């Protein structure tokens, strides 16, 4: 099928960017969206032009590195799908597709479709862990955890840190990402000792990075490729309030 792409090109964070239009006459419906970019880049290089820079690595929907904003939606039109798992059979012959990078001031553009998401790492470094040194652990079965709690913690922990929640939010809020980690650890007995401190530190770090506030529109939940629930934001808000009262 014939596909027309309007792709955001930007040399680096200091120069302004613009959309370039490319036409691909023969796209297979079995291709993934990123494989279509491979084919386009192959052609650009053979023509002596600069290839399009985009982030990607595992190409199986789990590393969280791919990050395209496709036709106004983070990771494209399918729910629960990362860009690398989006296949061209979901588009039609003759379609024009607009591809942009994640847009959020906390995620500065590096080049073309690549952005800097290191703000997420810094939020985790502020408190997204349980302080247990290697060798300190007790036997894994010494603390039973109700299956329901373990499953809920798993659902929160399934976050891949891709940043689609931030990219899609009109406020560029990182609440879904941060709350997923806060919630995972708050649901487990091992996470209790640091529970109050953790939520405060992580929220503080989140604010410092310049993410926007949450206005509960729920856009993040809709676009999250891993279906992380808005419930986690509610849980984090409650914990945050409690931690302030405890103080």
């Amino acid at each position: 099928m014939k596909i027309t792409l309007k792709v955001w090109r930007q040399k680096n964070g200091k120069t302004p960017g613009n959309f370039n239009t490319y036409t691909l006459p023969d796209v297979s419906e079995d291709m993934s969206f990123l494989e279509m970019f491979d084919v386009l880049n192959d052609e650009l290089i053979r023509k002596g032009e600069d290839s399009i820079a985009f982030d990607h690595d595992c190409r199986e929907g789990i590393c969280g590195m791919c990050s395209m904003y496709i036709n106004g939606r983070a990771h494209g039109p399918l729910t629960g799908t990362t860009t690398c798992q989006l296949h061209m059979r979901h588009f039609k012959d003759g379609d024009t597709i607009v591809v942009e990078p994640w847009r959020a001031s906390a995620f500065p553009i590096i080049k073309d479709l690549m952005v800097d998401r290191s703000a997420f790492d810094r939020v985790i470094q502020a408190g997204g862990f349980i302080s247990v040194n290697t060798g300190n652990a007790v036997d894994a079965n010494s603390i039973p955890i109700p299956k329901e709690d373990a499953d809920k913690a798993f659902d929160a922990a399934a976050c891949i840190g891709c940043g689609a929640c931030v990219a899609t939010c009109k406020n560029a809020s990182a609440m879904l990402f941060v709350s997923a980690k806060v919630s995972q650890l708050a649901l487990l007995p091992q996470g209790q000792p640091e529970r109050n401190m953790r939520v405060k530190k992580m929220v503080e770090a989140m604010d410092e990075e310049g993410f926007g506030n949450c206005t509960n529109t729920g856009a993040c939940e809709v676009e999250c490729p891993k279906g992380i629930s808005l419930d986690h934001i509610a849980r984090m808000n409650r914990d945050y309030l409690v931690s302030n009262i405890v103080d």
Partner: protein
Amino acid sequence: MILDAKIPEGPIADKWTRYKATIPLVNPANKRNIEIIVVGTGLAGASAAATLGEMGYKVKAFCFQDSPRRAHSIAAQGGINAAKNYSNDGDSVHRLFYDTIKGGDYRSREANVHRLAEVSTAIIDQCVAQGVPFAREYGGLLDNRSFGGVQVSRTFYAKGQTGQQLLLGAYSALSRQVGRKQVQMFSRHEMLDVVIIDGKARGIIARDLVTGKLERHFGHAVVLATGGYGNVFFLSTNAMGSNVTAIWKAHKKGAFFGNPCFTQIHPTCIPVSGDHQSKLTLMSESLRNDGRIWVPKKKDDSRKAVDIPEDERDYYLERRYPAFGNLVPRDIASRAAKERCDAGYGVGSSKMAVYLDFSDSIRRLGKDVIEARYGNLFEIYEKITGEDPYTTPMRIYPAVHYTMGGLWVDYNLMTTVPGLYATGECNFSDHGANRLGASALMQGLADGYFVLPITIGEFLSKDIRTKAIPTDHPEFEKAEKEAQDRIARLMSIKGNKPVDHFHKELGKVMWEYCGMARNAEGLQKAKKMVQDIRASFWKEVRIPGAADETNPELEKALRVADFLELGELMIDDAYDRNESCGGHFREEYQTEDGEALRDDNNYAYVSAWQYKGDNQPEVLHKEPLVFENVKLVQRSYK
């Protein structure tokens, strides 16, 4: 040079305990002054960097991805083994040790494997303490499942995302140390060379992938945890960025390369769909617990799977291996699939696939149970193929998945270069000629949490008086200049073909002649072909853009240039080993019924290759494998 594996004296079950009790230590005040470089932040690297930081060392950690959380350990699906015996099915440290040695077709080192089995239980404890949400029973205790090549249930898992959860656990421990400033993290950095001063590894040259700038970093020791080199085949289940560069550069600086030809072909991957294919996606081995593998009994049967009646289906694994059935080890399952497809019984449009069928299990257990166990895998399958595995059997075919070979290391995980360590998949040490499922995660975390942080003390304890070496030292300058020149040379070629063109050509040759089956004649042919591809790469490659900016094509070119050298060594190694063992199947050496035929009299050794300079043949050293605790027999899963 005689290879000394430095295996401690004493009975196998006491070696590690005794070693730990007698190893020289570094006191806390001295640890503060010692710097360690860790390259790679997958399970092996992140766990090592975190643990070394906790111990008080100053650590610098590097990864090429935009965050340490994205290393390809994240994609491991099925699980992690540990000899906990929570299932009360007769498991023990000895049994895990034995299964691993046998599964590896008797080509791994007993002492290392036993240590791995010993520390396996502590890994689970550590991960649970970090908040890793493993699957649990209703009583709140941990659930286990079984995996290929064993008869106990010792695999801990978190749905089909075990690697993700373990990596995020290690990443959280690493992040904690970054927050405490014990670890300095360098994301989007790629190591381009190791710096050796007075015979010891003392630092690295890394390229900042955003600015393109080359940087020099000093460390009293350097730990490589950079994963496997399966992308030498172009198509593999590895991530797009997974590469051999760090260990290949180390190899060229004196680290011997162990068993380079030992690669694992995973039996259950989604088949290739066309020339545009950029990578292959694994369907976890755990699926073989409930899925049955079959092909039609009739050649070139073009009916739909559901239209083929039961008595016209050949469940070839159950037929050939009644004792293990669909749960035979990976190498055996892969070869059996290839055998059926080569014989004309393959399915799908390419005829290079077999069915993995869940209809029996869905009938027996209900769709809900199957969905709870494998829901996310079924979703991945449907996304990629557009087919629903609940109603129509999956089509699968083997694909390159893991490399057992890697840098040769001694018991301390140190390479033949003093102060240079290799952990996780990038060393050769624990899996012999074939790795068992759910053992890669185990080894990565064993090395990183429990082995390396202790064994590195032996080297560092003698180094406490060494002051940080300034990075204007001539050896740093030399190494940086070499990296700079290589980049300049690549950029100046300005040919007419992109990097991928050469990578795909290399991959085809490696898959055809050095893949699931090999023979002497094909290997000789392939050697010449790889040399030719390499020569044309250096004449015709085109890299757009500039070296001093973000340039993904340059990154690829630097990696592929190294794969083009590695490929030849893999071929040499496969040619040298005149036997079949594990994933290394030489067609000349097989039993009457087509099973791998080992030659223990002549090939019970680790091949350790020494680089001798450009265009010089590498020199083969042999570390004899001594088996004192396991009797060598032909593997039988019948």
